[in-house]
């Protein structure tokens, strides 16, 4: 493998400090991480540990106080459509229909090269991928939370991003809907071969979906505590895995890190 495919996203010595009224607050410190092309990486840790801060840095929504972030050997200097983000609260524009929400993204990326019919076809294809063809002309207020999150995923995927960034995408959903969307995400990622970085606080979600789990220590000054490679074969089936000893082993390792070694959130804060 060339160095570009093994180090598609490269995070070097990143530190993030926020200015607050009580003085500077160090959220992240000494973060070093590389993500290979086509890899699925989960960031896990207790709330307030800076997972989302790190994701925002990769997205380019914020710039680090120190250190550099590279994507395909180029410095990340701002947000861009090659790094699509699925937000935790879906962030659909409520005055646009599902179709229009996705079309906004399609138009931005492909309008220069393609005609209206092609753009429309892309939008329809993205909605079809998440199974929402029937709801295309509905507004976000008229569909369920799970459907909204799927539109958010369609909006991200339609841009054909090099990197898909997911910020607790299923956090606000009920357990059954979450499981269904996780399975869909697994299928979609298997088809598109996307590089994915996903923030989560759900141990099962992390083990089921990812190739590597990046476990973060508690903030302030959070950093990467441990990285766990999940060598479960794909395609993964949640029912079969529920009894697999390997699966339970990985699950135990993450829980051990989160609750035994990093369990004292209140004391630390």
């Amino acid at each position, binding site marked *: 493998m060339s160095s570009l495919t093994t180090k598609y996203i490269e995070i070097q010595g990143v530190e993030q400090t926020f200015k607050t009224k009580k003085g500077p607050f160090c959220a992240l410190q000494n973060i070093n991480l590389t993500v290979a092309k086509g890899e699925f990486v989960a960031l896990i840790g207790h709330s307030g540990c800076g997972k989302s801060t790190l994701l925002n840095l990769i997205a380019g*929504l914020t710039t680090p106080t120190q250190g550099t972030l590279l994507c395909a050997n180029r410095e990340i200097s701002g947000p861009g459509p090659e790094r699509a983000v699925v937000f935790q609260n879906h962030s659909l*524009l409520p005055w646009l229909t599902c179709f229009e929400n996705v079309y*906004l993204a399609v138009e931005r990326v492909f309008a220069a090269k393609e005609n209206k019919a092609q753009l429309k076809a892309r939008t329809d294809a993205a909605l079809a991928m998440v199974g929402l063809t029937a709801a295309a002309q509905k507004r976000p207020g008229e569909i369920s939370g799970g459907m909204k999150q799927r539109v958010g995923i369609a909006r991200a995927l339609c841009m054909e991003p090099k990197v898909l960034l997911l910020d607790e995408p299923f956090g606000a959903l009920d357990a059954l809907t979450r499981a269904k969307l996780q399975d869909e995400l697994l299928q979609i990622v298997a088809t598109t071969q996307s590089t994915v970085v996903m923030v989560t606080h759900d141990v099962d979600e992390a083990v089921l979906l990812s190739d590597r789990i990046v476990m973060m220590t508690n903030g302030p000054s959070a950093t990467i505590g441990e990285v766990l490679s999940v060598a479960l074969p794909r395609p993964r089936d949640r029912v079969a895995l529920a009894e697999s000893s390997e699966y339970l082993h990985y699950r135990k390792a993450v829980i051990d890190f989160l609750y035994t070694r990093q369990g004292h959130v209140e004391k630390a804060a």
Partner: protein
Amino acid sequence: MVSAVFHSPLEPLVAPAAAQQVAAAAPADTSTPSQRDKEKASTPFDWRGAWMAFLPPLLGLGLLVGIWEMVSVGTARSIPSPLETWKQALVLFSDPFYSKGPNDQGVGWNVLSSLQRVAFGFGMAALVGIPVGFMIGRFEFLSRMFNPLISLMRPVSPLAWLPIGLLVFKGANPAAIWTIFICSIWPMIINTAVGVQRVPQDYMNVARVLNLSEWKIVTKILFPAVLPYMLTGVRLAVGTAWLVIVAAEMLTGGVGIGFWVWDEWNNLNVKNIIIAIFVIGIVGLVLEFALIKLATAFTFEEVKS
């Protein structure tokens, strides 16, 4: 709320269409099929709902008329009775659009000229206030720059600006419009600015991730997100403008509902003054209602809460 208590044999004759709708909408889970057929045949009518919808407002109006009558009797009819006023109103509204020179025109013309002034003054306030509000909301520097000015000017009664208007525009009509402009512009600026400041960061993050152009940000995100706030500003502005125009016209004269009130006071025609009060109230109510309807049509789920 279909209740069997209020069944009456007359119902099918009274309101068959309405009752049928009620029966169709009622699930009637507990009743057997035969009972349901019976209910459909006897078509229950929602008497309690109808009562609550009409009786209290009617009583309220009745109370007003009663007190009015008592005051009328108490002042030995120097305040005219409701019945006399009603008769006068019928005469007035039988010909609302006559014109016998500038000081004697029908009530319709008076209302329309007042509305026209409000429309001009408010329209200009919107043309200036909405863009200014957008700028103040978007740039903190401008917000800090204009906040002291707005805080200083806003509490001033718009009528205090009337002499300045008369001096600058050298005419009663533009001065009245100027007063309306001044009183309408503050709610427009403030609400638009607040709306822009409160556009959820999530939407702006979407704009940044999608790398939207400034034009797309304004048309697809900022404008729709600010619209409900802006329409609240419009509603407040039009409400205040309608209050102020009456007072302004009393001072400036000409044709207009405010001037008409003052003219009828000079004629000691109290009946017309009372009619004018009702007309002003009803027009204000209609304006408010229309603008609320408009605002709800443009308010979306997320922005509502």
